[in-house]
């Protein structure tokens, strides 16, 4: 579904991404994990066609993203890390506003149904400024689904919200994957990734150092350190300390 091949990106002399390669299967939830400044958001903005890479290729369903960015934009739903909503508008007005960016006209019923799915129907006429952090995050996701995209690119969509909302959002993402949507998800939180993702990729200092399932990560730790991880933090520290043990 998504093929990322040798992506490099630099801003001036600073190299952010250094030959990143991996692939994501259709209907898979792929978690991208890494410390702050690893290049996760840059990689996601390249996949979302917001930023151009310095070199490398990306394809969605065999379609070259860089050459067919307009067609690709209809396939993707991007959930930015900063909440991309109008605080002064109501939930309804926000949904209508963002529907204007779709190529196809969108019915109001469809917009309301999306809000129902993230349990915001009761807040339909509420100003976004009055919503809780969790509700705003849910609306942020609902907006990205307005044009029914096949691929969801989510940049830390649950950062800074309560556990209940986080679980609700994670369950919803799993539902979306079951419907056949491909999800690429970035986070700092390994526990969340373990609960949510089919496979993970570890991005560290602009390089992918691991790609595989959580079980494969654990096996690798046993193989390298001759001891299984006692908790998620230990596994995360091991993964972040690894140097390019990539299994693509």
């Amino acid at each position: 579904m998504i093929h990322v091949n040798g992506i490099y990106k630099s801003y001036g002399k600073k190299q952010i991404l250094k030959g990143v390669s991996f692939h994501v299967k259709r209907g898979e939830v792929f978690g991208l994990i890494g410390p702050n400044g690893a290049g996760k958001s840059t990689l996601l903005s390249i996949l979302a066609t917001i930023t151009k890479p310095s070199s490398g290729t990306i394809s969605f369903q065999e379609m070259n993203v860089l050459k067919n960015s307009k067609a690709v934009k209809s396939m993707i739903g991007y959930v930015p890390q900063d909440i991309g909503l109008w605080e002064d508008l109501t939930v309804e007005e926000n949904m209508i506003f963002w529907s204007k960016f779709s190529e196809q006209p969108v019915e109001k019923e469809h917009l309301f149904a999306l809000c129902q799915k993230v349990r915001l129907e009761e807040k339909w006429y509420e100003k976004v400024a009055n919503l809780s952090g969790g509700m705003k995050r849910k609306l942020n996701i609902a907006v990205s689904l307005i044009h029914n995209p096949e691929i969801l690119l989510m940049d830390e969509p649950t950062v800074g919200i309560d556990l209940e909302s986080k679980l609700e959002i994670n369950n919803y993402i799993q539902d979306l994957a079951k419907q056949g949507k491909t999800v690429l998800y970035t986070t700092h939180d390994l526990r969340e990734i373990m609960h949510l993702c089919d496979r993970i990729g570890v991005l560290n200092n602009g390089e992918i150092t691991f790609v595989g399932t959580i079980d494969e990560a654990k096996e690798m730790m046993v193989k390298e350190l001759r001891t299984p991880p006692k908790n998620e933090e230990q596994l995360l520290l091991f993964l972040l300390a690894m140097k390019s043990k990539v299994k693509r």
Partner: protein
Amino acid sequence: MNLLLIKLTDLFRHPVKLLFYTVIPIISVFLLGILLEEGQRGIKVPIALVDEDESEFSELILKRMKGEERIQIIPAQIEEAEKMLLKHEVDSVFIIKDGFQKQLFEGKEDSIVDILLTDASVAYGIVREAIAAEILRLSSNIQAADWVERSFQDLGILKSSPDDLWNEAFRYTDGQWEPEPLMTANFVLENVNNENNEINESVIVNNGIENLYSPYIGIWTFFAMLVTILSLDWLVKEKTSLFPRMKSTAKGMTGYLIASIIAIFVLHLIQLFIFIGIGNYLEKFIVNISLLGWMAIYILFSLSIGVLLAAYAKNIGSFYLIAAIFSFIISLIGGSFFPVDELLKMINFGYFQWLPQQWVIQNGGPAPFISIVHAVVIIFVTWLAALRRLQENL
């Protein structure tokens, strides 16, 4: 509801902001304008006037010039006037040349007044326009009186002496210039002699100096630029929150940006019309179609500069600071607060037409083509640079 309407609705949702962008600048312009007018009222620039002709008409001009509010006319002989000029006791010297009245009767208006200047002369522009207006008045009165006399003779209805009829026609025509002048005037320069700093001038008719003494239009250029740039603060916030998502959509960001700018433009046009309405009502200035067009272009320029500043601003605080500093400095150089065109000419700065304030301040009359080219080039380049910056990943 399309994007333009959404943005307009959003603007009208915030009455305090709306007030700040429309009413506050207008109140500020008039308050500051009144203060400046009061301040200027007490200042008189000394000008030496040499009457070589010593005719009825030259004395009439001398008498009328003495009535000018902002200048102090000092009648003098040529040698004395030159000495005063060299000592900077007078700003400039105007010489009504010998044969002035005779040439006016012959219908000749060229090279009848000379001006002596130094590098420090700044106020001669005002005086030469006032003198030109007087010459124009005399010349048209003569032409009208000649025509009346000729017509009476042709029709055979001349009952009194031709001189009496001519004088009566002259007086009648002259009366038509009160209380408002029939025409005003400005100049084209010819035969500039650098050695003697002497300029011979001819008169051309123009209706564009009504705002010569009005500080309001100049001050408006400052406040209009400031509030126009400040009204783009949403761009600084949205470029990091809303724009990334927009750029990932099929329709992209540009359509939204253009719709938003049009909405802001409409808001400032409303401000402009309120300003003109109040100005006309209070009889502070006259705005003709050409000036109105330039004021609208000036708002467009301020918008493009504002978008550029917002595109590069790191945060809202730095944007406000840069907007205020930029508006003040460019307004100061551009002549918003006091006339700078003569000063800029004096230091051989030949590009003052590129200063956007000059488009408005200088263009009460028909807009010169080159100014339109300047405006289009500056707005286009600024707009392109801003768009390019916003399209980049921020």
